[in-house]
Every structure is written in structure tokens, then in C-alpha cells.
């Protein structure tokens, strides 16, 4: 039995616009492709070395970062501000490429508990097991690659307390997908030999819940650099360490994530905030970039900011 309500006193929107056949077909294809991507789990034998390699470079990055000023600490007299700097790890730390999905952190959740207004995958509920975290991340990312770098292979991944970043390569292009902030965020694909310019350090923004922001970035260490450090300094003074990991091809990848709750970043119109500064140091040069809010903080290709 149903109880059909009468609601003459509630605002009613105009009739929705029906989908045309082309749109319906396109969305259907997108869904089916997403099912294909997520429906086959491949072996996880790469996960242990990948996690181990990531752990090594995290430790190296944080240690070096402390030496250069430390995260959130006082300003260092030299070196990239707040960078989690680390020498490029040797290629024998490379992880074996995976490519199998599983479950994903997601921006949505099917009907569940009463206060279901928040994303289902709160960063704080990230899997404790790095293997699971990376596997979940890859599964979350696969469907999102559909229109960005479909069919790309996973070459490396990094994991922190709030999520993972998975690096994908296909042909001469790469992209990265982050699950920090509770949803899969995929960057636009870049050429493997793309210039190491400002765009390479742009940030993606995710807002998992009220007064919480997550900022992520990732990239490829320039070929031939024997030393590489990136320091992101946010307007609240936070300086974010870097995580690096190498793949089987000898390439080194880096990722950064910063989740902030409350504070000026969440309570101020971002256009009124000071820009984010990025200092990139290699054995060849030091370059400082200024990232403008909105313009340089919406790098993601698969969802809004």
C-alpha cells in the first residue's frame, strides 16, 4: 500500500527536460564501459612492492623535508619551502604495474543511514591496509578514466592517511587519479614529455564536506633529474610534503595532498586568499610558481571544483 501525498504548498519545479536519444545512448555507453572497467579484478601481486616503495620514499621525503624546514614548521633558511624533498629513488624500487579494480571511495552512497549528507567515503575511513587502499583507489579511478585515458595501465601509486594516488600511463600520455577527499579525482592527461611548467604543478580541489577541503597534485619527475623537490605553501602557512615513487620503467612520480578543516581556506572566499606558491628544485635549477585560486586549483578532469 502506498500513501500518496498531496503537496500543493511545496515549490514545484517545471517539468524536466527529457533526454534525447543521443544523450541516452551516450550515457548508456558510458555506464556500460564503466561496468566493464570495474568488473574485472586482476591480480594484486604488485601491491606489496608498490606499497613498500611508497613507504620508503615517504620516509625519505619527510626526513628530507624536515631537514629543509619541515612541514608546518618555521621557515627554513634555504631550500624549497615546506617541500618533502627527496632524492629520486632508484629505479629498482619500482612497483609492478597493476590493473585491477575493486571497491572505490565515492562521492555518493546509496541510501543508508539517516544523516547521509556526507560522501560515503570519508577520508578518515580510508582502508588501513595500504594494499586495500591502493586497490580501492584503482577501482574508484577506472570508471573515471573513461574519457580521459581509457585502458591506461597503472604504473605506480602512493598512499597516505587520507587516500591514494594512482598513476596511469597509456602510450605517450599519463594521468593520475587521487582518492583523497573521498572521491576519485582524475587529472587531465599529459604527455610523458610535457614541459615541466606551471601547469605541471596545478592542484585539484575536492570538498568532501562542509568546511573541509582537500587539495591534491601529482606529477612526473623531469627525466634526468637526480634531485627533485617540490614545496607547496598554502595561504594558511601549511607546507606540504611530497611523496615519490618509481615505476618499472625508471620513471619517478610524485604526489601531494593536503586536507584542511576549518581555517581561512575554508572560511574565506578563495579569491581573497593569497595564492599558493610552489617551489620546484632540481639539481639543475629552482623555479617558483604562483598558483591562483580557482584558475590553478581545478586541475581535475572528471568533476567540478
Amino acid at each position, binding site marked *: *500500500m*502506498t*500513501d*500518496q*501525498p498531496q*503537496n500543493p*504548498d*511545496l*515549490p*514545484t*519545479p*517545471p*517539468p*524536466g*527536460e*527529457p*533526454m534525447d536519444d543521443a*544523450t*541516452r545512448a*551516450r*550515457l*548508456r555507453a*558510458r*555506464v*556500460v564501459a*564503466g*561496468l*566493464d572497467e*570495474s*568488473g574485472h579484478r586482476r591480480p594484486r601481486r604488485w601491491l606489496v612492492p608498490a606499497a613498500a616503495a611508497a613507504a620508503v620514499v615517504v620516509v625519505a621525503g619527510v626526513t628530507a623535508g624536515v631537514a629543509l624546514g619541515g612541514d608546518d614548521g618555521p621557515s627554513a633558511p634555504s631550500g624549497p619551502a615546506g617541500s618533502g624533498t627527496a632524492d629520486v629513488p632508484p629505479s629498482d624500487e619500482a612497483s609492478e604495474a597493476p590493473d585491477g579494480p575493486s571497491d572505490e571511495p*565515492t*562521492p*555518493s*552512497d*546509496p*541510501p*543508508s*543511514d*539517516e*544523516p*547521509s*549528507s556526507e*560522501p*560515503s567515503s570519508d577520508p578518515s575511513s580510508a582502508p588501513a591496509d595500504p594494499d586495500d587502499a591502493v586497490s580501492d583507489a584503482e577501482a574508484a579511478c577506472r*570508471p573515471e578514466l573513461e574519457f580521459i585515458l581509457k585502458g591506461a595501465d597503472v604504473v605506480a601509486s602512493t598512499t597516505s592517511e587520507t587516500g591514494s594516488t594512482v598513476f596511469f600511463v597509456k602510450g605517450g600520455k599519463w594521468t593520475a587519479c587521487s582518492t583523497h577527499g573521498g*572521491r576519485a579525482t582524475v587529472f587531465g592527461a599529459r604527455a610523458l614529455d610535457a614541459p615541466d611548467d606551471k601547469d605541471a604543478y596545478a592542484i585539484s*580541489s*575536492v*570538498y568532501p564536506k562542509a568546511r573541509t*577541503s582537500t587539495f591534491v597534485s601529482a606529477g612526473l619527475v623531469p627525466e634526468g633529474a637526480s634531485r627533485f623537490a617540490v614545496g607547496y605553501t598554502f595561504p594558511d602557512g601549511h607546507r606540504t610534503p611530497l611523496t615519490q615513487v618509481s615505476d618499472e620503467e625508471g620513471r619517478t612520480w610524485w604526489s601531494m595532498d593536503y586536507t584542511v578543516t576549518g581555517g581561512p581556506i575554508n572560511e574565506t*572566499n*578563495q*579569491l581573497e586568499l593569497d595564492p599558493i606558491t610552489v617551489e620546484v628544485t632540481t639539481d639543475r635549477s629552482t623555479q617558483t610558481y604562483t598558483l591562483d*585560486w*580557482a584558475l590553478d*586549483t*581545478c586541475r581535475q578532469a572528471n*568533476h*567540478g*571544483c
Partner: protein
Amino acid sequence: MAIESESALVERLRAGDPDAVAALFDRHADRIHQHCHRLTADRADAEDATAQTFLEVWRHRDRVREHDGSALPWLYGVATNVCRNLTRGRRRHLRAVGRIGPEPAQPDHADAVTDQLSTEQRVHDVLEAIARLPERERDVIALVAWTGLSYEQAATALDVPVGTVRSRLSRARRRLATLAPEGPAA
């Protein structure tokens, strides 16, 4: 050819048959899209949300629920969450780029030229009218008043007791009456 029952479809979905998602898409995508369009007031977002909804259905297939032999209420619930998160992110971005200022209200006289407004603008206006309601009350309005779900179906969609749906709707009415004494936008 006999039409497969929705219960059979749901069983196939639970069993991990991806074709069941495609079949559910064929049956319900238009309704879900319309629901998402009403919640997002943006065609592109509605399309994204529609596709995402069915991918979420696949991911959470072990949690699919039927109401009176239909998965549609549950689908509406998934879509509601997808759209909610989509619009939340977009609102943040819009604020960031300054497109929404502290006084975002459109001129009231827009009602006089409603027939000239695009559907999206009209949906925007309605969403604005209820923007100050708590999210959970907006969800109930969207499902019950806009989509036409019964209280029981809305309860299934939101996974709350029927009484909660009633009370939220009642509170929403009271709040709207307070916010707009002359009556809500139509």
C-alpha cells in the same frame, strides 16, 4: 516476448550480472535524469549524475532494495546522494570564482516572465527558494513533491522510516511558510 520482472532484474544485479544494470538503465534512466536535472539545474551535471548513479548501483549492488517490486525508489536514493555531492562541490567552486555573491537572489519580478525563462533557470529559482532548508528536507521535497514518490517509496529511497519522511516534509512546509510568507514559488 515477456518483459523481465524488476525483481528478476534485481536478482541478476545482486548476482553480479552487469547486463542487469544496463537493463535498469533502459528502464529508469529517463526518470533518474529528470530527477537529477531538478536537483542540479544543469543539463551537463544531470547527465554526469545519471551515469554516475548507475555506476554506483553496480558498485553497491549487494545493497539494492526493492519497494513493491521496483528498484526505482532505491535508485532515486542513490541519485539523490550523487546529485547532492555533485552540487555541493559545484557550489564551493562557484563561490570561489565569485559567481555567487552574498546576495544571490534573483529579482522577484522574474516570476512575471517565467514563461521566458529557460527550464534550467526556472529550476534554479526553485532550488533557490528551498536553498535555506536543511539538506534532508530538500531531499524529501525533491522525492515526494517533485518526483511524486509516495511516503513509503521516499522512505525506501532515503532509508529512513516513513514517519521521518512525514516529519521532514512537515518541517519543510513550516520553514517555507516562514521564509516566504506570501507562499512558495510555483
